[in-house]
């Protein structure tokens, strides 16, 4: 720490907030047990005192898929790259769902946890991280549902072609988590003092979905405007996901690399801001 040899006797120094570059990575690692406890808490408590329990996880994507199939498939007649509309929408909804859950949940970090944060110190990053991990459970269950449908269609001879790119799924999940977490902690840091952004998050995420190929395939976008959709880092993920499981559309390594770079950048910026805010937020929240 200091140049002075006497300084090093102290194990901890508390100073006014200054500087940006001090990531608490080591601290987060030291508190990994807490991270797991938070995840466990979410698992155990989420559907306490409901009758259907985790089945609610099924209901949401099924109902949304049916709605989308009727509205966008049957009424608006948006093409689905030759894939059964049900599978097409469900693949989009399930993967988009994980990203949007991560984003909304982490964007409330400071406000929902103000009570705990005000009473005890631990690296605040543990909270949003635990959200991202516990949301995997919901995602996993919904994936299972999707795969059941996929198998059913495949057995019935529908032309869907799951391929080797399925192995990329973990990468896609990590990318979605990183994007959701990155955006989420930025928003959460910015909303400690001024709550204005919280109003934006809810419908902002919904609007963003329409800028992502969730309800339409990339090929349905006129060449002229395609760059807008491609600039969206989620496009590469959804597209790859669909290609891997359904064989629809195409795999474009460039898009995925762009997404990766974007995710790393947004996560770094997010950590910087978050790390700074976690020290002062008690005065402003």
């Amino acid at each position, binding site marked *: 720490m200091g140049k002075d040899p006497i300084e090093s006797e102290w194990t901890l*120094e508390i100073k006014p907030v200054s500087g940006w570059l001090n990531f608490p990575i080591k601290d987060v690692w030291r508190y990994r047990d807490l991270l797991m406890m938070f995840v466990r808490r979410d698992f155990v408590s989420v559907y306490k005192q409901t009758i259907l329990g985790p089945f609610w996880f099924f209901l949401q994507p099924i109902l949304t898929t049916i709605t989308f199939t009727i509205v966008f498939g049957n009424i608006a007649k948006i093409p689905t790259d030759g894939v059964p509309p049900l599978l097409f929408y469900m693949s989009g909804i399930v993967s988009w769902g994980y990203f949007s859950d991560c984003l909304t949940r982490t964007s409330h970090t400071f406000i929902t946890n103000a009570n*705990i944060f005000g*009473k005890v110190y631990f690296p605040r990053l543990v909270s949003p991280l635990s959200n991202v991990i516990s949301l995997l459970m919901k995602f996993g269950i919904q994936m299972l549902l999707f795969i059941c449908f996929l198998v059913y269609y495949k057995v019935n001879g529908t032309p869907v072609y799951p391929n080797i790119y399925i192995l990329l799924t973990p990468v896609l999940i990590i990318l979605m988590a990183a994007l959701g977490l990155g955006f989420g902690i930025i928003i959460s840091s910015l909303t400690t003092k001024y709550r204005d952004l919280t109003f934006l998050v809810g419908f902002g995420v919904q609007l963003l979905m329409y800028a992502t190929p969730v309800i339409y395939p990339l090929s349905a976008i006129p060449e002229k405007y395609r760059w807008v959709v491609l600039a969206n880092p989620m496009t590469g993920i959804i597209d790859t996901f669909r290609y891997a499981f359904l064989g629809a559309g195409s795999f474009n390594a460039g898009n995925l690399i762009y997404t990766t770079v974007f995710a790393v950048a947004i996560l770094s910026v997010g950590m910087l801001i978050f790390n700074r805010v976690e020290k002062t937020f008690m005065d402003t929240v």
Partner: protein
Amino acid sequence: MSKAIQVDDLSKLYRLGLVGTRTIAEDVNKLWAKMRGKEDPYLKVGESNVRSAKGISEYVWALKDINFEVGHGERFGIIGKNGAGKSTLLKILSRVASPTKGRVRLNGRVASLLEVGTGFHAELTGRDNIFLNGAILGMTQSEIKKKFDSIVDFSGVERYIDTPVKRYSSGMYVRLAFAVAAHLEPEILIVDEVLAVGDAEFQKKCLGKMHDVSEKEGRTVLFVSHNLQAIRNLCQKAIILNNGEMYDSGSAEECLKTYNDLVREVKITVDTEVKDFTHRRGKGNVRMASLEVTGTEGEQRFVYKKGEKILFRISYNVYKEMAGLTCTIALLSGISREAIVLIHHVITEDILMPGDTGGMLVEIEELNIKAGEYPLYFELRDSKYNEYSKDVIDDLTPPVVILDGDEESLESYNPGKPAGYFQIPSRIVNSEVVPGGYLKKVL
């Protein structure tokens, strides 16, 4: 003795009031000053933290230039009135808030208990909550596993350990929470007034435990309270904070003496004003001009022995026509804020006119209630009990402390639950109304 905690020139600036559009203007101002390489303009304007005086600035030094050090294995007390900066200091030491200036250096693992049961989840069982709470306080899974039986044992809720904590009584909840905290084994333990919970027996257990971890295991304990008795029993050294500044430091015994003098200085006048109106309420039709709590010799003090006589001397000014005047004085429970002792007297049924002043002396012959701390509540109102006519002062004076007879021991001290409501005889010794008597000293 090597040092466990060293605090140098610690200061903390707080902004009062609401966050709104003006806040943005200030932020821009700060940024602008920073870009030109100048000092933060708002750091200069901070005032000392005297709550009862109207401030000019919205910025207040909650702590200013605090310096002290604590040796290893010491039990150190922090004393101060409400709003003296005790909690702010604790928050900085626990890394929950950051200081504005100065620094703190610590040696060893720190655990702070600003509240018991932080992060308890109502839906989880006692067992799960032990692990969750332990992890929040910084223990690892394996540590908690090792101490699990001992925690359950200490809490005394073994039978309910697999029941969700939302079904617990509040007492059981607190027991379980403190039990986890008591097994932390940090080198430095920071404790806020968590003792104000639970029953007397459990409080004794907690104080005993804190004493033990320091005495037997050589750990440092930093203890904050305005419960003087507990400080006297537990701590060797102490500091007094007053309005965010260091008032005194030294041995706990000396500090308590100084603190008693400090507390006696409280003066309540017509101008006593509190920004947020939680401590003085009323429309100003009548206002208490002075307020004294005294013993038989007329000396102002707040510590009494059980059964002693206590006198309240109140003078008032009338600013608008009042249909008579009544006076209510209450000793409240420190926790539930319910009145434990309530005395009520009609001072006069006559109309009082603006410009009138008056004074009264009310006596409680024998204050026979349980030992403990009792915040005071004073109210003047007209004899028709109209809401508009009232003047209320509460929490502005220090609480009355009742000690049990001769033995000032831990056993007798119970700030937690002075139970029940007591009918205690009281009388007006003296009352006088001076028509048009502003400025004339009455009584």
